[in-house]
């Protein structure tokens, strides 16, 4: 199980796409390649921009299809963050 606390990397206002890319390429994708379960923990994150979430997970969905959602969980998301994640997950699946 790979646990990734987003606040520690991106702060309460998660908007830096470079950090999102680092998390994706250095942590999420290698963990999924090893068949590990991934938890993205949004505890203490007040806002995440759509650009940040896109940079974090869009390529994961493109690479592994929507099966990736069976192996990636989003923890402690507030309502706003949940909705941004839903938007990205939905448009990515429309485009798969």
């Amino acid at each position, binding site marked *: 199980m790979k646990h990734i606390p987003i606040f520690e990397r991106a702060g309460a206002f998660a908007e*830096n796409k470079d950090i999102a*890319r680092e998390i994706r390429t250095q942590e999420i994708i290698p963990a999924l390649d090893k068949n590990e379960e991934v938890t993205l923990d949004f505890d203490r994150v007040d806002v995440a921009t759509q650009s940040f979430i896109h940079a974090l997970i869009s390529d994961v969905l493109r690479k592994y299809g929507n099966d990736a959602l069976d192996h990636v969980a989003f923890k402690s998301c507030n309502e*706003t963050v949940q909705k941004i994640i839903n938007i990205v997950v939905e448009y990515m699946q429309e485009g798969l």
Partner: protein
Amino acid sequence: MKIHIPNSAFLGNIDPFLRGFDPSSSDSLEITANNKWISVHPIVLSMIAALGLTLKPEKIHCEKFEAKSKHYLARMGLFKTLNLPSDMSFIEHEPAGRFIPVTQIRTSGELTKFIIEMIPLLHLEPEQAQTIGYVVSELVRNVIEHANSKNGALLCAQYYKKSNSIRIGIADTGVGIKATIHQSYPAKNDLEAIQLALWPGITGTTKKEGGTEQNAGAGLFFIKSIATVNRDFFIIYSGHGFYKLLKNLPTKRLHLNADPFEDRHSKDNDLPFWQGTIVGVDITLDQTEKFSLLLDAIRKTYTTAVRERKKARYKKPRFI
């Protein structure tokens, strides 16, 4: 280049100011102003700062301003940004809750630092601060990633007590929207490029649905949506193209459109050429819809737009 600061230029009446901009002779800049009164949107200062930074200070000629409100320009940091001497003395106010002076942001790290510092400075309710942080992040990040502008983004913002609104202006002197969009979508002119850039899911980085791993083509649509829902002005000016989202009438049922030309708007494709992109947005704070409610509407419009675009590419069966 010549730019004249009028007595009034806000997003609602900014068109004459933009039409008066003279981009010829790009090796010098002459700044003049109304001699009675100056009251302008921060976008005006961002534009002047962006233009001025393309030149050495000695190539900028700034007339001696006579207007009583001339100190506003100094207080907002315009002369400091351009390294111009200013003989105007003014009382330095604590900026908290009032304004963000002209600020240059060139890198992703600078932007992140700026957002962290900006949010407490504005002394807003958390919900409102989130909306403004969101707008600034998406707009400035667009400049950093797509504009290829040596001087990055020039940002300026001001709180207006009377209207309880924050007005934000961001300017760059980069490649402009048409050059960016044209990498993936054919755009006949600057206005068509602006229309495409505002469409959800369209990005200059790829034709692929869903964008690239770093870009979705959603940022400007989100900002336009925030302005639409809050019934505020939003403008984009790039090349000869200009788009202005007009205020929705209070009685009208709010609805988000994927096509910006279906919103209540004005447009022009014949303005003096601006090398780069200008974005201005007003956010009226007491009208700020709960951000999460706005996201519901965005989700619906965005997904429908992607679905329709995908469907439009379906091959039809041949019946013979």
